[in-house]
């Protein structure tokens, strides 16, 4: 985001929230370095966010509420059936069945699209997305080294929640995340830096990612692509970094 304000007190919040584009984020980092009062405010805001995140219990909707809603929505099909003491149940089952059908149709469509691509075309696609990211004015949509900022950012944008970690101590600082569209699917992409190299790490659930595993370790136009499956996710790392160091990041992320 390019903020409309220049008030440092507001910008600190936007910075903590990963809402600033890289240029403005750098500017705030400079202000933080120069102004101890501002740096203290940043610590307070982060402490507050951390306390809310870790202490407040996550609210779950009562199961009874979901049933009530299903009953209200499914009234038509329930009313069409002869009255029964289980009348609330069939509509809920119908709802569940239609979800299942929708899921099967959706995954079938994905498979169909993916089938047409050989490993070569897939490698080209992955490298093309990496180069797009390098050329774009901002290669990240959410600029933050805080995984608690990056991970929730994907909520509501994609249908899965990728594992997100910062490996700064191992030499691979997390610098942010973005949404990348690969094979017509929005994909969570984490951006790391190692020395002067930018690394894109696509994280996909196995149902979307398995076809990338065929790439194994590939080199294309001077870029290295490494893949790995772990814990129900497929990790696809792309960078101009050498394969060995790129492999170290993959080891850290997919373990």
């Amino acid at each position, binding site marked *: 985001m390019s903020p409309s304000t220049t008030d440092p007190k507001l910008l600190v919040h936007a910075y903590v929230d990963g809402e600033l584009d890289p240029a403005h984020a750098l500017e705030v980092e400079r202000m933080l370095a120069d102004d101890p009062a501002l740096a203290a405010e940043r610590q307070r805001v982060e402490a507050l966010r951390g306390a809310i995140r870790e202490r407040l219990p996550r609210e779950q909707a009562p199961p009874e509420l979901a049933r009530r809603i299903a009953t209200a929505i499914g009234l038509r099909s329930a009313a069409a059936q002869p009255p029964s003491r289980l009348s609330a149940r069939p509509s809920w089952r119908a*709802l569940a069945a239609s979800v299942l059908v929708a899921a099967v149709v959706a995954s079938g469509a994905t498979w169909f699209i993916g089938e047409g691509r050989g490993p070569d075309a897939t490698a080209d696609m992955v490298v093309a997305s990496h180069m797009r990211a390098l050329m774009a004015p901002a290669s990240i949509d959410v600029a933050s080294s805080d995984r608690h900022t990056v991970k929730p950012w994907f909520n509501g944008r994609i249908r899965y929640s990728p594992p997100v970690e910062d490996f700064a101590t191992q030499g691979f600082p997390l610098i942010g995340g973005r949404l990348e569209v690969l094979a017509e699917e929005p994909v969570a992409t984490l951006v790391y830096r190692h020395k002067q190299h930018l690394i894109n790490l696509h994280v996909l659930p196995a149902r979307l990612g398995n076809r990338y595993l065929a790439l194994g370790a590939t080199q294309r136009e001077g870029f290295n692509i490494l893949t790995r499956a772990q814990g129900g996710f497929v990790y696809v790392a792309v960078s101009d970094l050498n394969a060995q160091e790129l492999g170290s990041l993959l080891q850290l992320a997919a373990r």
Partner: protein
Amino acid sequence: MEWSASPMGSLGSEDDQARFASVVLPHLADAYALARWLTGDRADAEDVVQEACLRAFRGIGGFAGVNARAWVLTIVRHAAYAWLGKNRSAALVMVDDLEAVEQQQASDAPDSGPQTPEAALIAKADAARLEAAIAELPLPFRETLVLRDVQGLDYREIAEVTKVPIGTVMSRLARARRRLIERVGMDEPADAPGIAPANEARNEPRKVPRNQP
């Protein structure tokens, strides 16, 4: 309050049901949490969410398919405000006053808060204190903070849900956090030694506890 009596019989094909199940139901927990923070009560939150779901179901054809969570939360918020208007109009009257105060204060000095508690003190605030402090926030601040810090929406989404410009989201969020910091950072429980009794002093101006450059 009786929501479920509304005649749904003429509405909703099976397509709509499937779409509702894939668009709305995944966000039921978020919907309920927002409704609870807005109404302050679990039973009321259930009524609000049910009403919101019926509205969402009727309007499912109008969902553009971009951001399901923001769409659902927008409807929940709308239903919650309608509910508050009917059952607790006092809460909404206060909002109007507050908006006026907020706009007036915006032109005043931004750092009106002389209280600068230690980050370490804030970090150890427990759930009950945080809940109470958030619940005490005026509605526009509370919803902005909850959408951001509890539910993890970004500024653009919050602007969309609460129907205000991003600049307003930023200032409300900053204010909400400032209030919470002052509240949970200074207002120590009685069993903690060495801290001034904050309950009596909360509304009075206080000296800055540390030297500021």
